[in-house]
């Protein structure tokens, strides 16, 4: 079991991880790094779901299944994102997000 660790600790970890992911998303120029930041964000949400499930409603498995499905969605999202990134790379010879601004103005 989790012993004496309170729920808040999990939430702190997930919060910090979420905002680190946001930071990465805002500051990295590389599309793949941005994708990894998104994975971090999704992961932090998963931790939240699981922790709430375990501490507040252990008799159900809702949070658990949410996490499971989010993992599936993350996988799908990663696959499509990487396909798009590769396509962009083919067209622009770069995956720098600032250089993909043909539609600007």
């Amino acid at each position: 079991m989790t012993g004496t660790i309170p729920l808040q600790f999990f939430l702190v970890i997930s919060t910090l991880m979420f905002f680190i992911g946001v930071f990465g998303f805002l500051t990295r120029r590389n599309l793949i790094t941005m994708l990894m930041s998104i994975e971090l964000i999704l992961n932090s949400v998963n931790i939240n779901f699981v922790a709430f499930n375990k501490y507040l409603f252990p008799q159900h498995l809702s949070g658990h299944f949410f996490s499971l499905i989010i993992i599936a969605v993350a996988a799908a999202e990663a696959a499509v994102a990487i396909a798009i990134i590769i396509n962009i790379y083919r067209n622009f010879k770069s995956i720098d997000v600032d250089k993909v601004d043909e539609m600007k103005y």
Partner: protein
Amino acid sequence: MTDYSYTILIPLVPLAVFLFIGLTGHKMKPIVSGLIGTAGLAFGAILAYITAISYFWGGHEGAGYASIKAFEIPWLHVTKNLTISLGSLIDPISVMMLVVITTVSLMVHIYSLGYMKGEKGFHRFFAFLSLFSFSMLGLVLATNIFQMYIFWELVGVSSFLLIGFYYEKPSAVAASKKAFIVTRFADLGFLIGILMLSFNTQTFDFQTLVSQTGPAISQPGGAAFMGLSVLTWSLIFIFMGGAGKSAMFPLHIWLPDAMEGPTPVSALIHAATMVVAGVYLVARLFPVYALGAPDALTVVAWVGGISSLFAAVIACTQTDIKRVLAYSTMSQIGYMMLALGVSGYGGHDGLGFMAANFHLFTHAMFKALLFLGAGAVIHAVHNNDMSGMGGLRKYLPWTHATFLIACITIAGIPPLSGFFSKDEILVAAFHHNPVLFYIEYAVAGLTAFYMFRLYYSIFWGKETHYHHTPHEAPLVMIIPLLILAFGSIFAGFLPFEELVTSDGLPFELHTEWAIAIPSVLIALVGITVATIMYRKVTAIPDKIAGSVSHLYKWSYHKFYMDEVYLFVTKKIIFRFISRPIAWFDRHVVDGTMNGIAGVTQFASFNIRNLQSGKVQQYAYVFITGALVLVFIFVFLW
């Protein structure tokens, strides 16, 4: 009753020719387009002759000539009460005009085949000629005053196009603009007159307007302004339109400049047809003038009289042969207007009306002849100025002969046609207004003088040396001259008093020798003086010019009318009216619009950076926005 609905073809054929030549002319040989135009006009002329013969001599029921609405279709249904129709109206004056227009136009077409040969835009010229013929024929056939107005403007446009035919010449462009603007200004009066008249009478239709039981004549009352009834005012306004087209004083300034156009155009438009549109307009509404508003008719008479004298004086000093003819035209149209103005309605009282139309008819013949003759002269010596001419009778025998006939005709020597028509105008004036009558006597003398001055300066006078020997015009130009000369000689024997009268009924005409003989004598005096002065090169002209130097100078400068106009328009209208309006338009109206556009542009230029296309910037804004909202709702709410 004969069916005259085919008359609608007379204007429509030139229209079709215009469209055909205008659209495809550049693909064909120039001469082909010229021949097509001429053929179209010949067809119209034949139809017009058939119409005239069957109308005047084809037997008619009752006494006199009825006015027949041969064809009419409603064109615009504006409201239930306001419908504008197009059609053709057949009555003595319109049939006469059909004959005049188609004849002169056909002659000019044939003549132009030679005169315009090798010109750039040959097919364009013929297309415009056809357009003009269409407009003019539509004008005379108009069944209602609005149709007339439409064609009136079309005539103005085609005149504009033809005056500006040599559009590479700045003076031609200026002249065409001047003609268009001046006549357009006059047409404003015409339109106001139409609106006033039709508002009062609830109709556009000529037959309703001129019928003696119609609303215009039976109830001429209505509100009065400055002592004249609304009907009188509306007719004066309408006459303003007519005066503009007919180059009556003081709206005449465009006509001399219009001579920048090709000479056949001057013959067709600015001598024989378009400029008499004003006369035709007054004649068309004559019953309304005569019975409903005699005051307006008085205005017509005086404007005509003053114009004729004014123009005749100027014509004596001009040196450009086409300008002399232009002022002569103005003077002769003044005669016609005067004749209308002094006429009464019905029977022998309507002598003036008949005389005006008679003179219109004969004038069309001899003035077209004069212009075409002048064209032949210009064609030969490539110069408009009579100071550079002289002794041409040896080189241009045919032109010389026909020109002489035309000069004698316009001087009013019997038995040529000009004598008859002019004599009847004088008779009509004598019975009505002695002052105008004596003015016209003087004008008759001046006319003879300046025409023979022109004639002697061109064909006699000094022996001028030309760069190359002048050559007689080609046959295609001589034939129209001969035909028109024939018309000038014999048109006077047409029994106009039986055909074209104010009430459609024929009346007895007797030549009043007491008036005719002095007028012939005056004309002979004018000719004699001109012969003495200009047959040989003498010092007399200069002496006379010196002794009346002021008058000479004023006349030479056309009484400074152009300068007066320039002063009025530039110094007064432009400065005190147009400039403030322009300022208002530029700064307030445009300023508002520019301001709106400027603000929009400024704003969008500045917020453009929001749409940077940078995903991370969007994400940043989104996240901070979400955080602010969270902060507000979680901690502050």
